[in-house]
């Protein structure tokens, strides 16, 4: 009984809280996996409509944070809220589109692009329902958004890596989410697909979708990022205007992004929102080469 009344109370207050609450709020989140601590008190808040890039070296906890936000890992401490509702009570999963880190969209049995994307329509209240005309429309719309409508009948296993990634994104978009969370969506994606992908995100962001991206570097996405958060060893190292990289490795010689005023190559005329390095497909190696020569 007590549980029920508290639920009703939450429902009544939900719309009012919803209007002001951030899309994602993580307060002092700690996570341990298999007894090993991964995140130590991470803070992250995303306003509605914001596009945030989560950067950091391998093992810094980016994926763990994202998986904790969507409820795949249970935090040991701290608090997570989606649209103002604590994660444990959050039920509006149809508002969340998730693109997990995958190298392929295929499984052990052939499936068409349309079938995979249609699986993105299932939500807590609708998973038993049959597919209707409206749902077919949503699948086609999501595929058109990522420029894959022509391949709707193709088996996913026959597509290139970049195309499969676009299928996974369309699967997340089919439910028309308010919050889109993507874990390394650019892995294995060719340059042409990266541009298409950037255009897709720009369009979604224009429609008011809140977007959280786990990335290794901003690359072609730099123009749409409002803010970057850099993780290092399970804590937030930097949170502010976009920077091109997380800290790639300690001996790298670049200034830590936490010191936002001090990049040696920065000219004073540069606006604070500017990326520290020019965006490009492989600037890490370029920088290292330059240093090696110098």
């Amino acid at each position: 009984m007590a549980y029920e009344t508290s639920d009703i109370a939450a429902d009544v207050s939900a719309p009012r809280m919803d209007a002001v609450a951030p899309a994602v709020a993580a307060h002092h989140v700690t996570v341990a996996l298999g007894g090993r601590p991964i995140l130590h008190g991470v803070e992250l808040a995303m306003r509605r409509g914001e596009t945030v890039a989560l950067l950091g070296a391998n093992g810094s906890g980016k994926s763990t944070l994202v998986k904790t936000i969507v409820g795949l890992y249970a935090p040991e401490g701290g608090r997570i809220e989606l649209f103002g509702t604590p994660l444990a009570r959050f039920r509006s999963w149809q508002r969340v589109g998730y693109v997990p880190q995958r190298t392929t969209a295929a499984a052990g049995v052939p499936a068409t692009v349309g079938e995979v994307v249609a699986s993105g329509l299932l939500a807590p209240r609708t998973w038993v329902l049959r597919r209707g005309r409206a749902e077919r429309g949503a699948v086609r719309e999501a595929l058109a958004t990522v420029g894959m409508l022509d391949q709707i009948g193709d088996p996913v296993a026959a597509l290139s890596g970049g195309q499969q990634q676009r299928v996974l994104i369309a699967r997340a978009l089919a439910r028309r989410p308010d919050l889109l969370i993507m874990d390394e969506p650019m892995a294995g994606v060719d340059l042409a697909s990266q541009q298409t992908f950037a255009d897709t995100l720009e369009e979604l962001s224009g429609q008011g979708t809140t977007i959280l991206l786990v990335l290794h570097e901003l690359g072609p996405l730099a123009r749409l990022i409002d803010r970057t958060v850099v993780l290092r060893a399970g804590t937030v190292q930097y949170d502010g205007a976009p920077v091109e990289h997380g800290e790639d490795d300690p001996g790298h010689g670049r200034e830590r992004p936490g010191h936002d005023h001090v990049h040696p190559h920065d000219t004073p005329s540069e606006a604070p929102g500017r990326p520290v390095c020019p965006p490009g497909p492989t600037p890490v190696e370029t920088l290292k080469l330059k240093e090696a020569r110098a």
Partner: protein
Amino acid sequence: MNWGDTLLGLAFMQRAFLAALVIGLAAPAIGTYLVQRRLALMGDGLGHVALTGVGLGLITKTSPVWGAVLVAIIGAAAVELIRERAKASGDVALAMLFYGGLAGGSMLISLSGGNANLNSYLFGSILSTSTGDLWAIAVLAVGVLLVTLGLRRALFAVCQDEEFARVAGLPVRVLNLLLAVTTAVTVTVGMRVVGVLMVSALMVVPVAAAQQLTRAFAATMGAAMAIGVGAAVSGVTMSYYADTPPGASIVLIAIGVFLLASICAGLLRRRRGRAGARPAPGKEGPDRAPEARAATAPSLPQ
């Protein structure tokens, strides 16, 4: 009409055909999901576990079929638990469970005094199916088909990408458990027909054969069920005329279909490859250049 008189006129053959039809439909239906999530050998393991249930049924002088259903369901739940907390030792835990089930089953069946029975559960004895068996098989198979066809969208989503399904808000644990239990039930349905050692073949081989030639999940499932029914019915027919063991006949016919399908798929691919081979080399040269240019171009601040 001589054929109908000799074959379908016999009551035990009628029952055998009905049992074959039912398992031919049910096993590939659940098998499609198992292959999709790369758990093709799950049915094999649960077959081993089910044998302990048969032994319990025999030794307590109750029903071997329902004993098998019960123990296989418990085994399925255990497998799900082990899979959920999969660590490096999960594999070994499964092996323990499966061989424990097999050993326990053969021990119990032997203690019950009906040692001759063991073979019929290991390799099936479709020709000795009683009307009571047939009813049990039919009821269980209808349940299997209701789950596999009725919940196909949700099961597809869970087997395609479990993490995604969880974030989408599907009751993934319940669906996983349901899938495991349905697999266990299918194993017991197939036990009479092909035996616990080969029931997994009827779940997996028709799916493997179908997916050589299909592009869609729904089509794979449909074709697998058609192949399953075809192999089961023709296997029973063959066993009648050629006096071969029915279970082995069914499985070998299914494997024959698989080989035929792979050869057809290979020929199709080669023909498509030859058709596509000519324009490809000419296309490659000019196509690569802009891509390479873009990749090596100096990136500019935007």
